[in-house]
């Protein structure tokens, strides 16, 4: 599977409320894209479309060349197993070991019995792989620690290791640094962009801060009111305009 993502004329409505309107967007395999825009612009919805968690009201979403609407349950699971999501609130199981949390990233490529074996007694090879990933994210010595005994920053790295254990072709990060202090935010974005580059995975990260986009991403896509408002190298875009008061920006942009 390749990691290219392609939206064609995608509409998403939640009831009567439009979240995305006639969205066209193409992200190439291995590309790193920062997704910007004010709250409610549709960033999360766009990310959720990519793993089939949200179904478009109109238009098509293709990931790795496959139209998500054409996939049956099993095929969707296989696709999801290669699309990793890193959430701001981590969504780890707090009261089990770090190893179990990392290994849970492999469920999508395991059958039920094989995964039950892993749950009861992880295989040596699995533990070695988990350890190697923890080493890559910088918490190597925590494999058998209870997850909630780790600091917030360390838990975030465990969540990243779980995502990497999926051997992802696409990595989606939904506001990973929204509630993180600036120094840690910088470290985490550095880490995620480096990991995605090393593995050749596509990375789409929604961000609140144009500074981080400028510092780390060759391309930024800015959403506003469910549409692509700007798309290109962050240094060439007037990203700060996105966050000005709506009345101000609407006067300039229009619809």
């Amino acid at each position: 599977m390749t990691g290219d993502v392609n939206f064609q004329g995608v509409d998403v409505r939640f009831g009567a409320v439009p979240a995305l309107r006639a969205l066209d967007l193409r992200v190439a395999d291995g590309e790193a894209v920062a997704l910007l825009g004010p709250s409610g612009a549709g960033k999360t919805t766009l990310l959720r479309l990519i793993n089939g968690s949200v179904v478009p009201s109109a238009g098509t979403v293709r990931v790795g060349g496959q139209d998500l609407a054409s996939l049956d349950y099993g095929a969707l699971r296989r696709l999801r197993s290669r699309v990793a999501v890193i959430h701001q609130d981590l969504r780890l199981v707090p009261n089990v070991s770090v190893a179990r949390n990392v290994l849970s990233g492999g469920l999508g490529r395991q059958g039920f019995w094989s995964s039950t074996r892993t749950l009861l007694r992880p295989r040596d090879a699995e533990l070695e792989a988990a350890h190697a990933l923890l080493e890559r994210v910088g918490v190597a010595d925590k494999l058998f620690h209870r997850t909630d005994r780790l600091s917030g920053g360390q838990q975030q790295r465990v969540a990243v290791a779980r995502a990497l254990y999926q051997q992802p072709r696409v990595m989606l990060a939904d506001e990973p640094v929204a509630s993180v202090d600036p120094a840690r935010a910088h470290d985490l974005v550095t880490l995620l962009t480096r990991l995605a580059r090393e593995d050749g995975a596509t990375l789409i990260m929604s961000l609140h801060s144009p500074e981080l986009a400028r510092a780390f991403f060759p391309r930024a896509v800015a959403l506003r009111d469910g549409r692509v408002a700007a798309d290109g190298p962050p240094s060439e875009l007037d990203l700060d305009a996105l966050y000005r008061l709506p009345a101000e920006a609407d006067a300039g942009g229009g619809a």
Partner: protein
Amino acid sequence: MAAPEAAWTVRGRGPARGGPRGARGPVLLLLALAGLWAAWVLRLDPRALWPDAQAWGLAGEFFGRAFTPALSHQASSLPPDTPSILTIALRAAVTTVVFAAAAMPPSILLGLLLGFGASTAWWTGDRESGGRRRFAWRRVLGPVVSAACRFVGAALRSVHELLWAVLFLAAFGVTPLAAVVALALPYGGTLAKVFAEMIDEAPRDAAGALAEAGAGPWQVFWWGRLPRALPDMIAYALYRFECALRSAAVLGFFGFPTLGYHLAASFENLYYGEVWSYLWTLLLLVVTVDWWSGAVRRRLAV
């Protein structure tokens, strides 16, 4: 003046919350009236709580021995090889623990089976995935199996362990098996109900993340839902073990060799000192188990 006004505004804003909240007063009044009516039907007379002199004497005699439990037999003539009161109490305490401990594994097994079945998590496990294309059989069978498990669980616990004991005494006689089965059935039913609720109320964030990463519904259940409910389930099972100790003790009234057996015998002979020896032993037992289960729970604490 401002505060009540604000309260009304909040109440008015959310009809879903305001509705039951507004009805709380009349419901409480209705419950109070129902209680009074029931007391009237039963002809409850609070004055009867103030007993006559003879009853006072009996009560005084009984509670007077609370702090002077018998350390040796109160009967005057006993066969020479009769064990001491303390030996009997200790043996009965151990037997009580053995009965309770024997009843817990089948209870827990029953509770897990019925509890998993009754929970909705295993058949709506993939709802987190935002999704579509669920297994059809799961959606059809799920509610049926769930309702069946709920019904069996409710039936088992609607009969008290003492009534089950009467039933199994008739079937098996005074055998340990009768006592263990009598305890295991209602306890299994109770555990099933509580386990199911704990599984269904466990946080779903991790489960949702696993479904998004391609995990199947069963995997989501075992890896994402169950681990989050497990500490509560273990703590509750430990608490039920404590309850099982009391129940096992009371089963002694039917002739099983637990603390209740000796308690009943001494009580019939008006040997209140001995009664208190056994009661203190039971208390000590329950307190010990409570302390131990507390220690286990602290270790499991999230």
